[in-house]
């Protein structure tokens, strides 16, 4: 029991650290309209701002709404895509982070949901170098539904 308690405390501590580590990531908040087909679409520009060339884009999503469909984000670069879904709506935990490989240039993010109902979400996103240093990151919304 004692070991389990310690283990849970350690997990909680590391989780908090993980959240804190990404506190410096870029955040953007959006809403998906009530239609089940609603999609938001972003362009992320990654560039070397002096920290080094881009190696990947980090992304995670959180659905801040309760009683709504699950929200997912797909990160796309060239011919590859990666997905992550917030498994639990309305809590304080982001989806697992994903690392979409790619060099300096443009990535695309698609945010969607599994059904009808408004979903308010936040994205954490940051371009990073090969040694996880944050580098130049700009975002532009192309589709808002």
């Amino acid at each position, binding site marked *: 029991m004692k070991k389990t308690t310690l283990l849970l405390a350690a997990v909680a501590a590391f989780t908090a650290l993980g959240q804190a580590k990404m*506190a410096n990531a870029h*955040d*953007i*908040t*959006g*809403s998906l*309209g*009530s239609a089940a087909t609603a999609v938001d679409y972003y*362009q992320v*520009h990654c*560039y070397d701002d002096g920290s080094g*060339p881009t190696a990947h884009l980090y992304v995670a999503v959180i659905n*801040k*709404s309760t009683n709504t469909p699950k929200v997912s984000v797909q990160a796309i670069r060239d011919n590859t895509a990666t997905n992550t879904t917030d498994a639990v709506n309305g809590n304080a935990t982001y989806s697992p982070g994903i690392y979409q490989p790619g*060099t*300096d*240039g*443009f990535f*695309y993010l698609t945010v969607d949901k599994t059904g009808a109902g*408004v979903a*308010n979400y*936040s994205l954490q996103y940051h371009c990073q170098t090969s040694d996880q240093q944050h580098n130049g990151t*700009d975002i*532009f*919304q*192309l*589709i*808002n539904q």
Partner: protein
Amino acid sequence: MSSEPSGSKLFVQAEGATPSTSWNGEFFSKNCYSVNILTTGFRARGFLFSRVVGIHKFMDKILAICGGLLASSLVSANDNAINFHVSQAMPPHFELAVAHKPLTEVLKAIADTTGIVIHIADEPKNSVTATCNVADAKQLFDCLLEAKADLVFRYGQVGPVAKRAQVLEEVWVVRTYGDTDSHDGIQILPPVAEQKPDSSPMMQMLAAIDTGKLLTQAQANDPESRANAIATLAVQPAKNDPAIRKTVAAALADQSAEVRAQAVFALAKYDDAEAADGLATALQDSDASVRLMVVDSADNHQALLQQALDDSDEAVRAAAASKLETLASQ
């Protein structure tokens, strides 16, 4: 005036001559691995350039800079008090030791060893004494000239896409100064299209769309077609076109809530008082989806977001709260 032997990378312009960029069209390479240059010098009134005969590849010299394809481990120039070495490591490491030598001779040693093309607008009278041990070519010039010159740097890119790096390819020493002056260099970064968001493949595709057709589509009978047209106009690079602005404004009063919502999205892209007023009006829309779009698009309009906290629709209130929370954390 000085005369440079064939193959030299140092170009000294005669005093009184007009600065020239005669090699622009052919010389500005895109990367180290695809440079085929025909460089011919010529002697003309007021100008004197080195003469390089025939088509030749700079790959050997430039790949020395790219690091790793030289037969010897070091590339060096020793000329009786100019001691200059470039290591093979990637990125290359530069070591320079020089005492009381004319700057022109030192720059020639650097140019001939590294393959960096160096242009001097006037023949400097300075002699230099310097000891430099630096990690990149630009630092070498900074060290040698101690910020006493106006410099222009041009970079190219090398390597495969996944591991592309910048390399210094050309330097202009525009002017040198005395001890009391100091000036920063100007860097010309490689002309990579993706440096500018407007030049991304997506934006280029959007820019290629016939705006006239979109404006016509915005008057279509089908509300979905109108909404799609407004949504595309919202992200057009030419959104400041008065016709687009006018169409967006008109769409704010469309009978379809979907069209009005996309008009809000488009309006929010404009950063002026008229757009702010339009968003404030849209926040009073009868349809919650339009009001939600106002909140979703109103990233920096704190007053609007505060107002939306009192909205009759729970989703709008929640979205406003979420936006304000994000703004507060930034």
